[in-house]
């Protein structure tokens, strides 16, 4: 019930989230903006267009968008956004969620390599490097979060955060939140790690991988990227600000209320992220490891704090 609601919410809402973030950015830049519904218009148009099989590509190229979208949908069903009791909670824990998201990236990188263009290879290479360097931070943040509750299953972690709201401002939790926020930015390809609206191929990470995709394939990729962003933002809010999430056997009304609250929280976080991007420039590719080393440091300190200050 909750899981179905979550998947529908993420599937329908994430293009709107992207539209909202673009709108915030446009307003801060003094522009009028295309409106919140624009990403949906783009997607509608893309699925109506013709799919293209570039010369020399095969099943890997075609399967990549499907796998990317599939992994995000599974994650959307597992992660507690609306309700902490998901029937899939026993299926995948936080590690599995992280690994599933990585699987999506890998699929896209292989799809890009399959095109045999230089830009595809470049994007894939960079994406994999960011992924490899992000991994320690994520797992250590998971470590810090799970020490307190003795499990890595998301339902339990979030439930305990609901039960003890003051624990959220503990150093361990704050440091882990900061680390995970940087990771979220890196994983979703936002400024300062990657610029989603760049036209310059040499600066691209994510965009370079999708240069060959057209029509419905591209629609799937854009949709999946939007879902990935909203799932990760939703996960951040659920882990560190779980107020309003439905616990236990909540009724339909409670679920709807929780859905409204989570939409508000994710929208707020998204707006903050978009506003922050206005103030920042993209980092040079070889400065990104420094940023990620910083986030690793914070995650490590989070673990240390969770043990030594406990």
């Amino acid at each position: 019930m909750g899981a179905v609601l979550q998947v529908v919410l993420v599937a329908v809402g994430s293009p709107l989230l992207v539209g909202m973030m673009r709108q915030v950015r446009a307003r801060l830049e003094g522009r009028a903006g295309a409106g919140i519904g624009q990403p949906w218009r783009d997607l509608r148009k893309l699925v109506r267009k013709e799919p293209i099989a570039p010369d020399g590509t095969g099943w890997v190229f075609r399967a990549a968008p499907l796998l990317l979208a599939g992994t995000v949908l599974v994650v959307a069903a597992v992660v507690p956004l609306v309700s902490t009791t998901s029937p899939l909670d026993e299926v995948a824990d936080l590690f599995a969620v992280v690994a599933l998201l990585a699987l999506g990236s890998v699929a896209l990188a292989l799809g890009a390599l399959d095109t045999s263009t230089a830009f595809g290879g470049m994007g894939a290479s960079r994406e994999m490097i960011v992924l490899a360097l992000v991994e320690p931070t994520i797992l250590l943040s998971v470590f810090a979060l799970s020490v307190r509750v003795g499990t890595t299953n998301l339902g339990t972690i979030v439930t305990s955060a609901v039960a003890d709201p003051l624990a959220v401002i503990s150093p361990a939790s704050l440091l882990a939140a900061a680390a995970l926020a940087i990771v979220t930015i890196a994983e979703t390809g936002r400024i300062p790690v990657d610029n989603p609206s760049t036209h310059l191929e040499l600066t691209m990470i994510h965009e370079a991988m999708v240069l060959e995709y057209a029509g419905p394939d591209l629609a799937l990729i854009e949709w999946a990227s939007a879902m990935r962003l909203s799932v990760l933002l939703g996960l951040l809010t659920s882990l560190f600000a779980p107020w309003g999430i439905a616990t236990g056997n909540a009724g339909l009304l409670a679920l709807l209320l929780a859905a409204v609250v989570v939409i508000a929280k994710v929208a707020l976080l998204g707006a903050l992220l978009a506003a922050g991007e206005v103030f920042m420039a993209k980092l040079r590719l070889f400065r990104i490891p420094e940023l990620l080393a910083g986030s690793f440091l914070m995650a490590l300190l989070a673990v240390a704090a969770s043990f030594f200050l406990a």
Partner: protein
Amino acid sequence: MTETMFTLPPSLYVPLLDLACGAFLLTGMMVLWRRDLAAIVRLFALQGIALAALIVVLGVYEQDVELVAVGLGVGALRAGLLPYLMRRALIAGGAGREVRPVVNVATSLLVAAVLAMLAYAVAQPLIRLSPTPATQAVPIALTVLLVGFFVLVTRRRALSQVVGFLLMDNAITMTAFLTTSGVPLVVELGISMDVLLAVLVFQVLTTRMRAAFGGTDLDELRELHD
């Protein structure tokens, strides 16, 4: 004199203390990350505020007016005067960046992580002596001490080295307040004067050096030796 003062419940005291310590640590670590010297000075000022806040929180919790006053004084010195002096030195020396530290930034951050773990491990016996929320934050001070030393060793620009030295000084002050709730006022004043003097000397030196050599890269100082 304590009756009139506002009392701090432990449920609020511990998070506030942790928050101040966290800010203290984070600003210390960020010094390693930033290259822009102006940003480094800003971070140092922020750390001064965190330190002052920490001492004030301790003072309010222990209902010690003198401690609160010392805290405010420390804040004024370390978040106000010292950064002001350094900024002046910076302007006099031309704004600059830490272009190529001896150890690159990503590695520095990883080293800081290891230093932090080391500090935690080393401070355990100390904490076991009297496990209060305040002493539990001693590893943080120790970490900043080590990080400050590391900055002193690996950064090339004179100003960042001074910041490294001041980080160590901040950390020592913090340790003193956390473990014994403060050194006597006189000692604190004395140390602060010393530090102030050091920075003044440094400022004069930078100006002179700039006049003579046109830069403050410490590696170039080696030429004086030859």
